[in-house]
C-alpha cells in the first residue's frame, strides 16, 4: 500500500483529502506544517509527499528544500499541491525540488495520474488496498 504524507494546514482541505485518499485505499500520514512534515518524513517512511506550499511555521518550499538536502529523503517523490497557480509559483516549486505540480482545487483524477507517474519514474507503483 502506498504511504502518502499529506502536508496541509487548512483543516477542511486536509480532512477532505485524507478521507478521499483513505477511501482509495492509501495510507495517509498527516502533517499540518513543513516542520512536522520533516519529522514524519523521517519517522513514518512515506512513499510520496503531497505538499501544500503556504503553511505556517515552515512553508512547503522550505520543507521541500530541506527534504532534498537530507540524504535519506533526497529521492522521495514530492508533489506540490497548492492554490498558488501562477507560473512563477509553479517554477518556484520545481526549483525547490518538487517532482510535480497540481493546482487547487484538486482534480482528483489528475492527482491520481500524477502520483502514479511520479512513482513510476522512481520505479515504484501506486498501490492501494481494496477501495472502500
Amino acid at each position, binding site marked *: 500500500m502506498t504511504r502518502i504524507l499529506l502536508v496541509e494546514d487548512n483543516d477542511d482541505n486536509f480532512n*477532505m483529502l485524507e478521507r478521499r485518499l483513505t477511501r482509495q485505499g492509501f495510507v495517509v500520514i498527516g502533517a499540518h506544517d513543513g516542520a512536522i512534515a520533516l519529522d514524519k518524513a523521517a519517522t513514518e517512511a512515506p512513499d510520496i509527499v503531497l505538499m501544500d506550499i503556504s503553511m505556517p511555521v515552515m512553508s512547503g518550499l522550505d520543507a521541500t528544500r530541506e527534504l532534498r538536502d537530507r540524504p535519506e529523503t533526497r529521492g522521495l517523490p514530492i508533489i506540490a499541491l497548492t492554490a498558488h497557480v*501562477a*507560473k512563477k509559483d509553479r517554477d518556484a516549486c520545481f526549483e525547490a525540488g518538487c517532482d510535480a505540480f497540481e493546482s487547487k482545487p484538486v482534480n482528483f483524477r489528475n492527482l491520481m495520474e500524477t502520483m502514479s507517474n511520479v512513482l513510476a519514474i522512481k520505479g515504484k507503483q501506486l498501490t492501494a488496498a481494496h477501495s472502500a
Partner: protein
Amino acid sequence: MQNAPKPIDRDSYRTEIEALEQYLQRTSTFHAIIRLMGIVVMIAAVTYAFRGHYGVEIAIWAAIVLGLELLAYKRTQSCFKKGPAPLSEDGQIDGKPVTRKQVRLAIYIEILVPTFFMTVANAAPSLFLMFLPAPGPILGFLNAAVLMLNIAAQHTFRPSMPFITIPIPAIGLIGCAWAMSTPENFWLIMAIAASFLVQTLSITLSGVRAQRNLVYSTRKAENEAVARQIADEANTAKSVFLANMSHELRTPLNAIIGYSEMMMEDAEDEHRLSDTADHRRIIMAAQRLLLNINDILDFSKIEAGRLDTEIGQFDLRDMIQDAVDAVFPMIAEKPVQIRVTLPEDLPPFWSDRHRLEQCLLNLLSNAVKFTHEGEIEVRGYFESDSAVGEFVLEIRDTGIGMSEDQLSKIFSPFVQADESLTREYGGTGLGLVITKHLMGLLEGSIDVESMPGKGSIFSLKFPVMTQSALSETDTQTPIRKDAPLVMIIDDDADVHELLSRDLKSMGFNLEHALSAEDGYDKLCQNSPSVIVLDLHLPGKSGYEFLEQLKCDPETSGIPVIIHSADCDRQTSIQKGAVTCLQKPARREDLIAELIRYARRAPGAETQVKNSHSARNTPQSKSA
C-alpha cells in the same frame, strides 16, 4: 460676506519657494561679481575722464554703490542659509494663516526692494553724468546701457519686475542720449536709445517666461516621477493582492469541490439519484465559479501585460477531449451533441497546451451555453502542410447566433453581445476578450461567423510545430524545402550533433558553421530564418559576428538566438539578439524559441499570412 481666503497648501508653497530659490541661484555670486566688475570699470572710467574734478562726488558715489551691492549680496546669502519659514499642515506660518497671494507678495517684496535700490545706485551716475560736459553723457549712456543688459538678464522674477526697475536707468539712458546728441543727429540718437529700451523690455519679458517654465517643468517632472512611482507601487500591490485573492478563493473551492465529489460518489454508490444530481450541480457551479475567477485574474494580467505563454509538446486530441469533458455536464440535460472531427494521423503538437485549452474551453462553454438543441462540432485541420503550419480549430454550434451589431461588440471587455443575454445566460463577458488576447500571444488569431437563429462558427488559427512522423525514424531523410532553415554557429561538434538530432526531427532544415567567419560565408549563400549563436568562437567572437550581421541591412533582420554557457541577457538583447539561452538549453526551450522566431523571420516562406481577423500584437514575455 465674502468667503475667508483659502490658506496656501504645501505643494503650492513649495513651488513658490522653489521659484525663489532658482531665481536666487541664477542671480547669486557669479552675477554679483560681474556686476561689481562693471561698477569698478565705470568708476575708473569716470575718474579718468574727469581727472582732477569731482573727486569727492565720485568717491561718495563709489562707496554708496559698492556698499549697496555688498548689502544685497549678504542679504541674499543669509536668505539662503535661513531657508524658508516652515509652513504648518493647515497653511499657517508663525501661527498665522497665509494665502498663496500673501506668500507670493512677501517673496516678491523680498526680492524687489534690494533689487530696486541696487538699480537706483547703479543708475545714479547716468542721471548726473548727463548734466556734465563731454565725455560725461557718453559715459552715462554706456553706464545705463550696461545696466539695461544686466536687467534684461536678471530681472525676470515676475512680469512686472522690469517695469519697476527699468524707469530709472531709462531716464538716464534717454537723458544722456539727449545730452550727447547734436541737432543733426538728435532723432537718430533718440531712436537708438528707444530701440535699446524696447529690446531690453522684450528680452526681460521672455526671460520671465523662461524662468517660469523652468520652475514649472522641473516641478512637473518631479510630480510625474512621483506619480509613476505611486503607479508602480500600486501595480505591484495589485498583483500581490490578486495573487493572494486567487489563493484565498481557490482554497475553499478545493474543499467545496472535494467534499461534493466525495458525497456524489457516495450517492452514486448507494443509487440515490436525486442526491447525485444535486451534488453534480454543486460541483458544476463550483467549477463555473473557478472559471470565472480564472477569467478575472487573467484579465487583470492582460491589463498589466503580465500574461505569458509556455510552449511545450502535447497531444491535441487529449487536449480537446479534456475540454469537451469539462463542458459535458452542461449538456447533460439538453438535446445537444458534441462531435469532434480531427485528422486521422495527428502528430504531437508544439504550442501552449494550457492556453489553447483555455481558449477552446471558453468557446466551447459559450457554444454550450447558447445552444439549446442540435450539435456542437469541434473540427480541426491543417491550413498548410509545411513544417511550421497553421492549425485551425473550428467550433461550430447550432445555437442562437448573433447579429452584425452583436458581432462587433463581442471582443470588447465587459460587454456581452446583448445586456438581455447577461440576464438570461450570465457570464463575466471576459471569455472572448481573453481568448482573443491569448491567441495573439500564441501568434494566432480568432475569427467568427454567425447568423442569428442559425448558429455561430468560431475559428482559432494558430501556428504549431509538428513532429513529422517520417523524420523521426530517419534523420537523414531529406526534409521539405519550405521548412525554416536554422543556422547553428558553434565550435563544439557535440552541440551540432545534439541540436541537429532534435531540430531535424522537428522538421527544421539545418546549416552548420564552426566559426563566425564560416557562418558569415554560408549566410551569404543561403539566408537562414534564424541563427543559433555561440559566443565563444575561435577567431571572431559571437558578439562581433552579431554586430557585423546587424550592420548589414541584408542580414540585420535575421533573428539571432544566443546559446552560450555565459549568456548575459541584457547585453545580448542590446547587441541585437532576440533572446539568450543558457547552455545547455532545455530542448523544449530552444525549440519553443525557434518556433517563435523562425515564423517571424522576413525570409521564411512559411511566414504568417496576414488575415483580416482579430490579431493582437504579441506581448513580450514578462515576469
